[in-house]
Structure formats: C-alpha cells, structure tokens
C-alpha cells in the first residue's frame, strides 16, 4: 500500500498517533482491496458462454473495479493532504464522546448469536434474547422489566407476522409445546 509510506509526519508525533489521526487510510485500503477483488473476479471470469451484444458481462465489473482502485488512491491523497470525512451527527449522537467500541462489539455479538440461535430455538425465544441482549448492551439495567418487554415483543411479533401478515417465522420448540 503506497499510502502508508507517504513520508514522515509533519509534526513530531509517534507513528501510532499518526496512524490514529489518519485512520481514514483504512477506508482507502478497503476500497483498494475491494477494487482488486472485483478486477480479479472479472479477469478470471469464463466468458466462452454465449455473449449477446458487443458488451459482455465483464465490461461493467471492470469499470467498477478500476473505479474503486482510482477512488481509493484519490481518497488517500485527500486524507494525506488533511481532508477528513465528516462523522454523521444525529438526535441521540454525542460526537464529543469517544466511540464506545465495547457496546458496538457486544451488539454485534448479540446479533450473531441471534443468527445462530434462530434455527434451533425458533423466533420467539431467539428474538426475545436479541432484544434483551441489545437493550442490556445499550445500558438498560432493569432486570425485572427488560426480559418481560423482550418476551412480549417477540411473541406479539411472531403472531402478527406468522398469523396475520402471512410471513412465516420459525416457531421452534416453544411453539411446539404451546
């Protein structure tokens, strides 16, 4: 990656703090990787199949892949010149506080657990765990109220979707008992 070796930092800072200030270069790396991935996929494509028309299935991916590589480089130049992406604000967002990585990691974990558990446990139980876990991760500590709300929401959602709206959700062992 050419962007990492872009000369010494202007101020006497450690390499680590320089990297933290320029963490947006990670976005460039990701864009570049994505571009290379798309280009590789395009080049290894087997296009002996019937190609209808002068433009085959490779043209657009090639353009998109090249575009990604180009944008990655341009963005790197922008970041090294001091350009910064503006973090998005919002009603409940306090950008003055440092990012709370622990909450995000917890939420991600809870969500992955839901993806794993929905098969064996069914929606009502897995959904309740998802809501409770998320609320807990977000700082709710009402141990009496939270599980009840979670269970109620999950059961009502299950019945509304499965029975009223005709969108099937897995009932799991709980619904087998009831």
């Amino acid at each position, binding site marked *: 990656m050419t962007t990492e070796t872009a000369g010494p930092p202007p101020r006497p800072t450690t390499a680590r703090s320089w990297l933290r200030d320029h963490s947006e270069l990670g976005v460039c790396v990701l864009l570049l990787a994505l571009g290379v991935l798309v280009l590789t996929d395009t080049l290894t494509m087997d296009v002996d199949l*019937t190609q209808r*028309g002068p433009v085959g299935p490779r043209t657009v991916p090639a353009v998109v892949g090249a*575009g990604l590589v180009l944008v990655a480089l341009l963005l790197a130049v922008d970041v090294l010149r001091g350009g910064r992406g503006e973090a998005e604000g919002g009603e409940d967002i306090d950008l003055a506080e440092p990012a709370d990585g622990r909450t995000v990691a917890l939420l991600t974990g809870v969500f992955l657990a839901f993806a794993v558990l929905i*098969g064996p446990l069914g929606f009502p139980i897995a959904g309740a765990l998802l809501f409770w876990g998320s609320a807990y991760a977000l700082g709710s500590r009402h141990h009496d109220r939270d599980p009840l709300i979670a269970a109620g929401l999950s059961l009502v959602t299950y019945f509304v979707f499965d029975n009223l709206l005709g969108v099937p*959700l897995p009932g799991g062992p709980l619904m087998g008992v009831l």
Partner: protein
Amino acid sequence: MDSLNSLVDGFGTALTPVNLLWAALGVLLGTAIGVLPGIGPAMAVALLLPVTYGLEPTGAFIMFAGIYYGAMFGGSTTSILLNTPGESAAVVAAIEGNPMAKAGRGAQALAAAAIGHFTGGMIGTILLVVLAPTVASLAVDIGAPDYFAIMVLAFIAVTSVLGSSRIRGLASLLIGLTVGLVGLDQMTGQQRLTFGSLQLADGIDVVIVAVGLFAIGEALWVAAHLRRSTGTPIPVGRPWLGRADVRRTWKSWLRGPVIGFPFGAIPAGGAEIPTFLSYVTEKRLSKHRDQFGKGAIEGVAGPESAASASAAGTLVSMLTLGLPTTAVAAVMLAAFQQYGIQPGPLLFEREPDLVWGLIASLFVGMVLLLALNLPLAPLWAKLLRIPRPYLYAGILFFAAVGAYAVGGEALDLVILLVIGVLGFGMRRYGLPVLPAVIGVILGPAAEQQLRRALQISDGSVTGLVDTPFSVTVYVIVLLILLWPPVKKVITRVRA
C-alpha cells in the same frame, strides 16, 4: 380530463375499507416513527418492507405512501419540541420552531407545521396528478440510451450534490455498484462475485442492503456515541392558531410548494435544499424579520409546506421515470421490484389501479394526518421519552425480523450484519449512505440499459447519444460536474 377520471377511479380503490385501513395504519406508523428520535422516513420504510410481504401491492404501496407523509409530519414534532432534528429536512423546523416552543408558543408552532404539511402535501399531490401522466406520456417513447442517461444523471447528482466531499460520495456509489454486481449476470447468466456460493448467485437482496445500511448501520453508529443525557421535550398542549398567526402564515404555506415541488422531482437530495431555500425566502419577505431566529412562525410554516410538496415531487420522478431522488424513494423502488413491478412511463398504462389508487390515497392520508395530528400532538410528544436502549434494541430486532422474512435464511442475517458494519464505517468516515443504496438499486438496471443500447447500435458508442433526450441529459450531467471548478474561477475573479 383523462387524469381526473382516473383519479376518481383511484378514489374508488383508495376508499375501500381495506385500503382505508392500510392508509390509516400507514400514517399512524409513519407519524409514530417520525416522532421517534433516530428513525428517519427511509429507515421506517425499509424496516416496514417485510410487513407487506403478505399483502397485495396496492395495499402495500398505499401504506408506504402513508408512512412517507406521516414520517415527514412526525419529524417536525421532534424538531420543535426537542430541538434535535433527526433528518436533514427537519433542521429548519428546529431553527424557528424550538424558540417558539421555549417561549410557550409550541402549540402554535406545531399547528403551523401540521397545516403547512397539509397544504404543501395537497398542492404537491395536485401537481402530481396534473403532471405525472404528461411526463409519463412524454417518456413512453424514450429508449435504452435515454434510460441509461437518466441513470447516469442520478449517479452523478447523488454523488455531487449531496454531502461535502465528492470523492467520498463516489466511493459510496462504487461500493453500492459492487454489491449490485453480485449474482448472475442478467443477460448471459454468468456468475459474478459469487465465489461459487449458491446463495450469492441469487444476488444480495435490496431489502437486506437497505435495512443493513439504514437500520443496523444507524443503530450501531448511535450505540457508539449514545448521548448519555437525552434532552427533555418541552411539554405542549393541543395545537391551535389564532387569527393573527393565520394572517401571518397563509402566504408562507402557499409559497412553500412552489419551492419544494420542483426540488423534490430532481435528484438534488430531497427536502434539504428546498426547506432551506423556503426559509431564506420567508425571512426576506417577512414583515417581522427581526423575529427570525427567535421564533418566527413563518419560518416554520413555509419550510414545512415545502418539505411535504417535495415528497410529492419525488413521487413524480419515481413513478414516471423510475428515478429515485431521495432515500425513501429508493427504498420504495426496491419495494416495487419485490413485486416485479417496474416503475416507469409504462406504469400508468400497465397498473392504472395501483398508481391511481396510490395517488388518491395520498389525499386520504393527508386528511387523516391533519385529523390525527392536531388533536393527538401531546400524545405523540410522549413518544420522545422512550428509553434509548429500548428504541435502538427495537430497531435491531425489527431489522432482524425483516432480513429473515426475505428468504428464511440465517445467512441473510449474517450478510445484514456485515452490511450494517459497513454502514457504521461509512457513517464514521463521512461516506454518505444514499449513493450506495442508489448504486445497488439502479446499478443492475443501468448496466442492462447500457448493454441494450450498445446492442442496438452494434457496439458503437454513438448509440448512447443518438437521441435529443439523452444529449440533453448528458449536458446537465456535464454542468453538474463542471460547476465546482467554474464556481472557484468566478470567486477568484471577483476577489
């Protein structure tokens, strides 16, 4: 006269008890979600997509339209009472509305906003009735090169007009286009970016992308920066307006749509620019210019009316050209695709019941909104007190339900989470989300039109610019691209 007859038929569709129920449900859900902090109309429509899987399309779209208008209505309540606008369209409402609420005139601010939305929405929808069939009949003859040109315009506009950095907008668009490439090539059946996975061969469902970027990405982003002390909403009574206020505001209500409607129809970022322009206009024309910034009622009435009219303008482009100009329209377009319906010039011929039922339901929805919002405002304001952990846990919960309902696959939930983490990163580093969504939705269609156009012209690139329509569109694209450097030169010459 033709469109009037169709509209009457449309009312026949919209006023059946079932569809009336969907419209009422839509405006209620929309208002509630609009009032809830942290949920904008685009996330609302994305989260509620799965609710409609079991519905027939007419009922589903009537409900969506209700959600769209309702969320606009509700958003201004949050702005006025909490001074923290959740979406860019409601920023202006906070500038004048919140000082009014602080000065004890919250009821008047809410009433000015609600009636403004009603007037703007009504005028906008009437313009939609008049203009949409004309635009559609003009556009019936346009072919593949013209469609491709329109989509290029959408891509360029969405990356250039929105946000502060073009390069970041472009990066977002390219990410969206890449996601849109995954799956089988529509024309040859060639596998692209599937890595041999059978599930990826079907492509990544647009609903999952929309829910992931709008709902999961937003929830994770808020979770990382959750405000520990939430603001307390200003208590408010039933909205009403005195005669002096009406005298001050009626012109503002009527001026709003003139600015809002055309801006909604073009890909310029939806209601953000017109609400601001309307605010500036009202300030210039007002007799009470000294009150601006301290709670001038015109500054609430005009922009709110402009915002609703811009929503109607958005629907013109979406229904007649299949061109989404805002995030909500993009998600609604995805919903059309779910039903196998292609919005565009032929929609008015092929699905008259659906289109006119939808348009008629907009009128019904607006009346319902006014009837609901004026008396219920104090009740809606209570929603602002919902504990934030429950709010964002609920968003994650319903996002999961939606993604799972798409195909009943646990893998979809993992893809949803990955896209959500992507949305989190995009918010962190200032990549706008809308270009990515537009890229996913329009990318495959644009590729198809491009290849069709080149097929007709036998590979000659001139085939892309052989109609006056496409040439005009490319000139507009060029103007958008050239504007920043030209502006730089102008300011330098002046200085």
